[in-house]
């Protein structure tokens, strides 16, 4: 017999379901015309720079198939870089090159690939293989992020990123997503990445889950999650809240990475953030969203919203 949780219990816990998220939050607070800004990573980057939000440096954009050969020759001069589809979704089609081995490129997983493979990847991106609705797309080449060494041990072969859900300028819930061997270096929870709930007040880990089950340490690196304290926490909350004003989207998922030299940087935005963050935090979004609504009604001041959020949403450890 499959064990289920009763809908009443879910409601008590304040868990936000997919239908309510779509009708009550995304449909209501996220005007469709503002989606372009978050779905197109180039536009996101431009807007972020205009708003003084730090982002990874853009090396270049490849728009047409005939530009690929020239672009790959230029990439030869770089040690590390990241290739992304401009309109990719869910972390699809991202190629991370962390170093060189003669003519070959080393991926974050340690696998070596040659220039032809890079060209093929670029061609697929332009053809729209990884993009929403299979539309033709552009590829962007970005600087490699130098992870904060403190977080490096929490991720295996991939970028640990921090997802903050912000509602009406109030940070509501946060988690860190740690790639594992099983998730193939990707930070997707349903592929086996570890989700670590983060206390809004302190930036400390609340608990960590993999495949919906509690874990205490990273399955590959053995790093203990209990000791985790995200550095630059205040800056992270500040950055996430500012993105709401920047995009005009009331309900927003903000993905942030920590760079060794430049601190928190905006990686990408998501107008339809997932619900798994509730499992990582063992907390429902509905109650918090209701509180956030009150906070937003109370004050318009950016710093005050964050302060109130830290006061209300702290779990007290």
């Amino acid at each position, binding site marked *: 017999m*499959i*064990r*289920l*949780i*009763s*809908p009443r*219990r*879910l*409601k008590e*816990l304040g*868990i936000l*379901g*997919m*239908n*309510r998220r779509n*009708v*009550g939050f995304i449909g*209501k607070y996220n005007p469709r015309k503002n989606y372009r800004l978050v779905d197109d990573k180039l536009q996101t980057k431009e807007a972020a720079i205009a708003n003084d939000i730090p982002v990874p440096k853009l090396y270049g954009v490849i728009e047409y*198939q005939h530009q690929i050969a020239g672009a790959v020759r230029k990439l030869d001069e770089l040690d590390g870089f990241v290739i992304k589809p401009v309109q990719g979704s869910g972390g*699809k089609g991202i190629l991370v090159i962390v170093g060189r081995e003669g003519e070959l490129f080393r991926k974050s997983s340690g696998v070596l690939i040659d220039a032809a493979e890079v060209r*093929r990847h670029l*061609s*697929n991106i332009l*053809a*729209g*293989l*990884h993009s929403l609705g*299979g539309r*033709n797309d552009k590829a962007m080449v970005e600087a490699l992020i130098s992870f904060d060494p403190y977080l490096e041990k929490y991720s295996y072969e991939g970028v640990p990123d921090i997802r903050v859900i912000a509602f009406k300028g109030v940070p509501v819930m946060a988690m860190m997503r740690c790639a594992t061997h099983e998730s193939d270096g990707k930070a997707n929870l349903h*592929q086996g990445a570890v989700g670590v709930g983060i206390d809004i007040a302190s930036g400390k880990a609340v608990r960590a889950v993999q495949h*919906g*089950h*509690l874990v205490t340490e990273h399955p590959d690196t053995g790093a203990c999650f209990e000791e985790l304290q995200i550095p630059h926490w205040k800056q992270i909350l500040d950055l996430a809240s500012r993105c709401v004003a920047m995009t005009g989207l009331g309900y927003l998922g903000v993905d942030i990475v920590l760079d060794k030299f430049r601190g928190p940087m905006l990686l990408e935005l998501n107008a339809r953030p997932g*619900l798994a963050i*509730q*499992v990582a935090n*063992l907390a429902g979004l509905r109650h918090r969203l209701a509180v956030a609504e009150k906070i937003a009604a109370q004050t318009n001041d950016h710093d005050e919203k964050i302060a109130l959020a830290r006061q209300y949403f702290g779990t007290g450890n």
Partner: protein
Amino acid sequence: MMASRTQIGLIAGTLFLLGVGLTLYKAVVLGFPLLPGEYRDVWTIESKINFKPTKGPVQADLTLPSNQAGWVLLEEHFASSGFGFTVVEENGGRDARWTRQTLENSTTLYYKVQAYRPTDTALDNIPPPPIHKPMLEGDQSAAMERLIGLLREQSSDTESFVSLLVGEFTKDRDAQDRDAQFLIGTFDEPEKAVLLAVLAHAGIPAQEIRGIRLEDGRRRQTLSSLLEFYTGDHWVIIDPETAMLGMPANFFVWQRGSGAVLGVVGGRDSSLEFALVSNSLPAKTVTGMEQKAHAYALLDFSIYALPVEQQGAFKGLMLIPVATLVVVLMRLIVGLKTSGTFMPVLIALAFLQTKLITGLSLFLILVGAGLWIRSWLSHMNLLLVSRISAVIIVVIFMMATTAIVSYKFGLDRALTVTFFPTIILAWTIERMSVLWEEDGWKEVLKQGGGSLIVAVLAYLVMTNALVEHLTFNFPELTLSLLAIILLLGKYTGYRLSELYRFRDLDKSA
């Protein structure tokens, strides 16, 4: 949000009540049965008369069918723009007569009749007509005598004699009796005329029966003939093409006895063709139609008012809303993942033609083989549009191969493979293959399985007798369905899948 909720509520409420109200009106006041109950196959037979006019006045006469052999005629329609029209009663039968002084272009005249067969009775036992012996050449007469003599020796009574005779005529030319061969060769007439001549010569009263072999959805059907002969106390029917005794199933008797069914004066190249559609109607409805064949206003509300050829299309069309409801329920309430929102509906529609088991196997074979070929295509590094086009062409080839191979193995059902929507299959294969590369085979199984489950459910609902009955007889119920779908669009409760997904949240809380 309250405002938009109330608005949706009001609209949905109005639509729902309108749908249910109309249904109840039809059920209670007009006597349409709500439950399927006993069904009758009602055939709609549409005859088209085509001809090219010559100079002078034009007159077209069509012999009309009457209630014979248990067939009951329900409703008749005539269409004749610009023609004078009368129905003439002549020696027991009825003729439709279209007349016009001059006519420039070739024209089409229509006669439509609805008929059903409540009882499987035989034709009336009319007295046999006088026998007119055929005029024969000497050698023809001798051949006929020899043939009759030979068959008389082999047979015990009139029935077996006629069976043997017709059987001789249906044989391959090489296997035929010499005399029969000779008769067919020297008579400058169709075989059935030769048969009638032989029967007349043998002193057996016989005549032709003209009628239509009924096939649902058939267009351009032409008149067929049966033969009937008199055994001394009753008539026996024999099919001159198969030599089978008795009335074939689904044979609609148009005219008994010889004589032209269609006569056109002042025209040439005339032809008579029929379009046929069968509807399963509740017995009660049919009885109603029979009683008030002309004053039955409620028929104007239903799909039966449409031309024959469109009725069949609407039969299927009215089922689609029900299938979409299944998709909405499975996605919003249950939370199944499907590949492409309404792909399952299209697959279910294909299943309607192929039947479930054949459909499922064909689908799995096509998608499986498609995925395999697609994985090979992905190594060639093609641009998206040409890759999908390539997949479409591969899918078409696979459909053809499946059809040919299975036909050779005697599996006729697999021929229905053409009902699968090619483009949708190609996109499904493309999506699944990308999903496989990015999220692994588990996700492919999850979404593919989800789509198939929804498709099968939609199929089961669409083939349900009650659903079929209600959607076709009460199309206004679709309004109520629309109301339900609108309301579901505002459903913010949990999905069943979420009760599973979040099941562990309870433990430590």
